[in-house]
């Protein structure tokens, strides 16, 4: 009788929401969570120790949080866009002022119940914020000076706060998240081309301004064998671990490179190395397929969403997740210099997982409320 009821009704029943769930995405996330737990168990030397326990707790809590988030209307996430951005910028300022220093950089802030790394959250919320910014904007206004300047400020402000920590890697990832939104929002191609050209031209000057350790990283990346026990150690050992894995890997809990502690940072940035050593090319390919399916689902959810905000968020988040994965893997495989960037879900680290799960939560919410229009 009322053909358009579903289109006009904003309210969905609890069970309807369940029906709207993207189960493929959910299964993939749970699968990834399971794989990450197994890998973490391996980094603990085949015992349930601190990292495994802690990772499990975070995984459970944040997955639950993601599910709860998916029941909350996408409208709500739209509405808190600016507020969340401002709050996190506030946290970044707080980090700058009272942050916890660890291994030479001030990245964490003590929130009494949790030590949070606000820069990780910013990777997601900059997308929310910019997606909201462009949501109502007419296409002809997108390329106006005002828009471009405002969006640049939105990106550069947190970037600057992260660079001073210092954490160049995360700052670049925040920028990439933001630029992804600008790209989907329809900023003229030529600006991207100019930016890339400008970047290439200014590269020598940028290098001149890099901190010595950053310069060293770039040089080491270009020639890791020059200093195999010093700066090149991580890249070399990581390549050895991955390469020695072979087609089927050395077997679960049998990765000698990690088990004998040759691998640096095996819980965090180099978790893929350990996984790849133990499960080989086949295992790594399966992991990549899971990630690919996740990204595909995120993009598909974006495509099926009616609201522009949901669309632009999903597409940009898809790009962001993709970039996080590829940068982490390229770095571990010796294709990029070592920049601290975790592998989403797999790496140990609460803030990174929280941010990723929030992203998944919003995507899920967009899926559940995919007919929701935002005024």
């Amino acid at each position, binding site marked *: 009788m009322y053909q358009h009821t579903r289109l006009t009704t904003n309210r969905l029943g609890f069970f309807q929401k369940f029906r709207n769930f993207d189960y493929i995405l959910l299964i993939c996330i749970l699968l990834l969570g399971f794989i990450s737990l197994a890998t973490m168990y391996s980094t603990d030397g085949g015992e349930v120790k601190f990292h495994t326990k802690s990772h499990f707790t975070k995984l459970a809590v944040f997955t639950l949080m993601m599910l709860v988030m998916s029941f909350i209307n996408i409208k709500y996430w739209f509405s808190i866009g600016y507020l969340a951005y401002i709050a996190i910028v506030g946290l970044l300022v707080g980090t700058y002022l009272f942050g916890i220093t660890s291994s030479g950089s001030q990245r964490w802030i003590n929130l009494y119940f949790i030590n949070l790394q606000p820069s990780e959250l910013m990777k997601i919320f900059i997308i929310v914020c910019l997606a909201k910014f462009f949501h109502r904007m007419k296409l002809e206004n997108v390329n106006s000076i005002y828009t471009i300047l405002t969006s640049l400020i939105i990106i550069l402000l947190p970037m600057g706060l992260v660079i001073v920590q210092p954490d160049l890697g995360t700052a670049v990832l925040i920028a990439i998240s933001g630029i992804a939104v600008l*790209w989907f929002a329809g900023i003229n191609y030529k600006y991207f081309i100019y930016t890339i050209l400008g970047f290439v031209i200014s590269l020598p000057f940028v290098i001149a301004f890099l901190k010595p350790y950053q310069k060293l990283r770039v040089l080491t990346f270009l020639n890791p064998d020059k200093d195999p026990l010093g700066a090149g150690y991580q890249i070399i050992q990581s390549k050895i671990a991955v390469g020695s894995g072979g*087609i089927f890997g050395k077997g679960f809990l049998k990765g*000698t490179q990690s088990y004998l502690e040759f691998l640096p940072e095996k819980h965090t940035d180099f978790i893929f190395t350990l996984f790849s050593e133990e499960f080989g090319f086949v295992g*790594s390919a399966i992991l990549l397929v899971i990630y690919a399916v996740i990204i595909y689902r995120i993009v598909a959810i974006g495509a099926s969403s009616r609201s*522009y905000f949901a669309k632009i968020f999903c597409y940009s988040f898809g790009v962001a997740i993709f970039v996080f994965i590829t940068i982490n893997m390229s770095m571990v495989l010796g294709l990029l210099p070592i920049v601290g960037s975790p592998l989403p879900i797999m790496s140990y680290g609460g803030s990174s997982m929280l941010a990723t799960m929030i992203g998944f939560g919003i995507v899920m919410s967009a899926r559940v409320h995919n007919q929701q229009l935002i005024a």
Partner: protein
Amino acid sequence: MINSSSDNVKKLNSINRRMFITGSLKFFVMIGIVSRLFFLQVKENKKYLTLSDKNRIREWKLAPVRGEFHDYFGNVIAGNFEAYQLHVIPEQVEDFRYVIYRLRDLLELSDTEFKKVLKKKNEIKPWETLIVSDNLSWQKFSKINNHLYDLNGVKPVISISRNYPFKENFTHLIGYVSQANQDDIESTQAIKKNFVPGLKVGKIGLEKTFEEKLIGTNDIERYEVNAYGRRISQLEFQKGEKGKTLRLTIDTEVQKLSNELLKDKAGSICVMDIYTGAVIAMHSSPSFDPNLFVFGISQDDWQLIRNNPMKPLVNKTLQGNYSPGSTIKPIVALSALENGIVNTNFTVRCTGKTEMYGQTYHCWKKKGHGYVSLRNAMKQSCDTYFYEIARKLGVDRLSETAKKFGLGEKVFGDLFDIEKKGLIPNTQWKKNALGKGWLLGETIITGIGQGYIQTTPIQLCLMTAQIANGGYKIYPHLVVDDKVKDQPIDKFTPLYKNSKNIKIIQDAIFGSTNEVMGTSYRSRIDNPKYQFAGKTGTAQVKKITEEERELDLKTFQIPYEQRDHALYVAFGPYKNPRYALSVIVEHGGNGSTTAAPMATKLFKLIIDRHKIRESLGNKKYLEI
């Protein structure tokens, strides 16, 4: 509304177009990552697998078990024993301070030893083995074992180490082992290859010469290690090979007797088989206990050996350059006969001294020997006779014969790097070495083995052996079955022009021992089984002045360093000779009173042992 919706459509078109562009970009990047994975894990897998193994597998070499030295009869003269050691791995000790102080009390370590241990502990990694003590007595070892309950992390270990059961008897011959130093590692390939910290290698003697044969090969343990080098698990144990055991020609009984005879004296005894060249005994006195060096000699012991005026560190058999004295006379006489200077009927009148070229030359017997022929002159060792025939012979012809019989030449070739060549002078030599012309007076004193001429005890022994075997060349050797292929082609070539001359010399030497008036008559053995023939020698170490000659001092009245060296060379049994020997007692006074009686005792034993030796040899041939 329409306007807004058309804008929406435009926006959607734009975003979808860009989404497709992004999607295809993602696809290509993904392909890139997968191909990189494929490259590393499939294509380059072997390379990285090797690198990974290189990372995680480390080898530990253990000291090889050294080959032994046996004497001719199979007695171990340099062997291995189980040394009781105490190892501590600092990391496995809960309270290192407590344990180390407890050990100090139990082992009664001195302050310096204790400090050394603590210093060593600071130099190693906490999971490496600290050797607290490398050679414990059984008492202390069992004491530690009784207290193990409160010495957590302390490991009593039994390890293999060098042992010389006959102590000072074989020191100069075999040498000793001690910790390898940088020079040892660089100079010998085998040491470099098998080196482990604490490896003991030969420092002197045969231990050094045969290092490559004795050293053996390492046991190899392969361990899986972590990034910090800590051992995780043993993967493999590869047993090394024990070094080659060498059987020597030496008879321990004879060697022991030599040591006994030279007790508290400085000198040398060597005994040789005159046909095979097998060395039966070779001893230099005073000697020292080589076991002292195995675990590092203490400063006190070292000073005691180093400062001993009798110079125990010198291997007198090979390194001692002595004037041969009268022991050269058989060669002088032989040379004169061979060159037709004299015959057996030629006589010289000895009046106790003779004037030649304005210089007075004394015979050892003041009253003189009267008219002496060759046989009598040899028997009574008449100096005047030999002055005369030396003068007639000339030093060049004399040196030729002497060199033929092995003087002035290394006896063992390259076997010992310390061996001296001695010196057989001739006119050419003096011109080259000293740049002066030869004086006739020098020929005259060379005739009685004084002046420039210098010989080592082993050379004298070889010389006597070659006279005793009828004048045939032999090559002395110490190791049994040491590669027959190396046998020199000129072995057993005659050294004489006329074999009758050798007979004459042998007979003259026989007279010297077994006939009344002979210089070593008092040391003779009448039983033909043991009967030997020998020539005494007394080598002056300084020129005797006229006043001293007048005083005619007895040996004990002269200061030790100025006393004559006593020499004796002999072969026996006379009827069917088999062994030759040389005895030198530094500053022993007279050859006939000091050196010759030693030969009597030696020959008794040597000839008794001969039968046992032969039976062993025969048995060996039967087995083959």
